[in-house]
């Protein structure tokens, strides 16, 4: 068996990849945290603590998914020339950036969805009433017939 010769370019590639991927993830998570806070404060107006908690949990998920994915795609078959090393690095960073982009849009979707839900709760009925009873009818409460929101 031939002894495995470590590729001389692989170590710098790995170091560059690790620095860039961790830096990018941290940077993006901070942006997400800052801008997401605005959205969530609007949604959880009555419970600002809840807004902070949800925001933090979203950012934790973002870190876990991105760092995990970055670690998984780090391994490379080797690079014997400087050109190959640059290509390997570019391919990995490209894959990482695209995954970060997908994650980012997914996060934005979540923020919009959470916000939309809370906005819906205070909107008026979609149709105007066709008729008005002359006086508001006094409504006796029949507990058995009323469906309450839990």
């Amino acid at each position, binding site marked *: 068996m031939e002894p495995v010769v470590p590729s001389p370019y692989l170590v710098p590639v790995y170091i560059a990849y690790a620095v860039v991927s961790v830096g990018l993830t941290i940077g993006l998570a901070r942006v997400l945290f800052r801008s997401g806070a605005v959205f969530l404060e609007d949604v959880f107006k009555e419970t600002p603590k809840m807004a902070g908690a949800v925001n933090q949990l979203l950012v934790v998920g973002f870190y876990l998914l991105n760092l995990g994915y970055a670690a998984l795609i780090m391994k490379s078959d080797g690079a014997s020339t400087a050109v190959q090393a640059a290509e390997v690095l570019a391919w990995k960073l490209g894959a990482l950036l695209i995954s970060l982009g997908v994650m980012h849009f997914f996060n934005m979707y979540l923020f919009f969805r959470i916000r939309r839900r809370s906005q819906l709760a205070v909107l008026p009925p979609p*149709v105007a009433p066709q*008729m008005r009873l002359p006086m508001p009818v006094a409504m006796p409460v029949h507990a058995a017939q009323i*469906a309450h929101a839990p």
Partner: protein
Amino acid sequence: MNRLTVVYDGACALCVRCRDFLATSRTLVPIELLSCQSREARERYGNVPWLGEELVVVSDEGDVWIGPAAFLVAMWALADYREWSYRLSGPALAPLAERFFVAISSQRRRIASFLTKPRCEDGDVCTMPHADHELEHAPRGTYR
């Protein structure tokens, strides 16, 4: 608005099923369910001409929705279907939804007979003050 009263046809098995569905759904506005055959419905909403003919929804402020509009407002009261009530009242889907609700409502006894034997709530057949002559459809609700 603090409460909605849904006046359904208690002599129609389909409507009774829908009532059971409403009663067990998560609501954003408390819903009171009243059969149009009940004395209470007649006493409280007797001057709504479409009572017993079409689905009627009344708010605690006296606003009345009839027919397709009533279906939409009932959906609007449900936590899981509020989004759909707006979608179905938008310009793209409103005409379709309206026809669908009118068809369901006018064919309800027939549809119910496919599902199960008719189950009458108060025992007797619904006799409404206006049942002797043909009622025109309620005026269309204006979409917001």
